């Protein structure tokens, strides 16, 4: 399940990271591709794709820094809410 989730995130991000094979633990902010549009698009994508809402106090760059961290956020959010993804 986690692999599938990571693949979905990677597919979404790959459009913005052309010609770069993004690794699960790679810092997407350090790569310099993330502008404010993508930062918010990423929130919208995670919410829409995995069916939860990111709250104001969950706005923490750590949650979005790597595919791994995003996956951990999804895991926390969906296991708390009992959502199947």
């Amino acid at each position, binding site marked *: 399940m986690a692999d599938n989730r990571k693949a979905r995130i990677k597919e979404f991000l790959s459009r913005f990271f052309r010609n770069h094979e993004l690794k699960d633990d790679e810092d997407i902010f350090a790569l310099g591709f993330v502008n*404010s*549009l993508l*930062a*918010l*698009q*990423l929130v919208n*994508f995670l919410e829409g794709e995995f069916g939860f809402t990111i709250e*104001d106090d969950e*706005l923490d760059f750590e949650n979005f820094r790597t595919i791994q961290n995003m996956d951990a956020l999804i895991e926390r959010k969906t296991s708390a809410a009992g959502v199947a993804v």
Partner: protein
Amino acid sequence: MKLELSDAQKQARLRFREFVQQRVAPYAGGWDREERVPLDVIDQLRSHGYLGAPLPVDSGGGGMDAITYGLLTEEIGRGCSSLRSLLTVHDMVAFAVRRWGNAELKAGLAARLGSGEALCALALSEADAGSDAASVRTEAVREGDEYVITGRKKWITFGQIADFFLVLARLEDKLTAFLVPSTTPGFSRTPMHGIVGTRASLMAELEFNGCRLASRHLVGRPGFGLSHVFSTALDLGRYSVAWGAVGIAQACLDACLEYTANRRQFGVPLRDHQLIQRKLTDMIVNTRAARLLCYRAGYLREIGDAEAMAETLVAKYFASQAAVSAANDAVHLHGGNGLTEDYPVARYLRDSKVVEIIEGSTEIQQITIARNPPGEL
């Protein structure tokens, strides 16, 4: 693919059109001259549920779907861009507060913002910070459980009468959003006059002189003010402005079809001259193309697609230029009359330039769209 309005959307459009034809369009030129939208027309927007229309019903809003909201914005924008700009700024702020405001802030406020009972405005720009929004200098300092805001904002649409301002400030150098009530001690506003576009939009400069706020007025977390809170607001703002621009282009077309049918030169109505037909055709085609891009953006917003933001940028970019081009041609097709206040087209031209500058100017969209192209249809 099915590209068609539902019956309910068509009926809503008729209602919006009727409202604008009766209560807005005939007066818009006068409001423009007086530099003020009257308060009673704002009351009418409220009583029709046109303020806060895109906010969910559970937060006091109208729960309007994205396409119907677009139709509303187009129709209001067709009658009066200044009034449309109230919908834009109020809704974008109310929406961002609903999205990123904390529970304590929303508990007392969401319904008042959603219904338009309390009016909101967006306070981002400063004298030295426009396109480069991250360079704002307004400062926030944390003191115990409170924040103290100091700085000045410029060009604030409906700043003369808004009850709440979404303010971008630096908190320990992190861009951070706050919702500031106009009743906060230390807050003052000065009307701005002599702006030539959306002249009736009650614009103001704001001063925050040590405005002390309880911590619940922080919106989102420190450091996320521009990237998430204001970006959420600006995304809705661009959607609204794109539709408003379609409204201007359509108003230009309406005016030109009528004028060129009635005005005769060289023994025939103007519209029988082929060079005039070329201008009318460009106006017809660009207006339709702009509207289609807005439908596409609206559809993606409605289904919650992550592409919606990128597609909204495209719609805003195209529609605002279509409006300027249509308005420019509209003034031209009216000849000398186009430059008088006897016809609305000069106002359309002034207002169209505004939509090309606000919510990210054309150049800023060019930079952003090239960097974030939307995916395949």
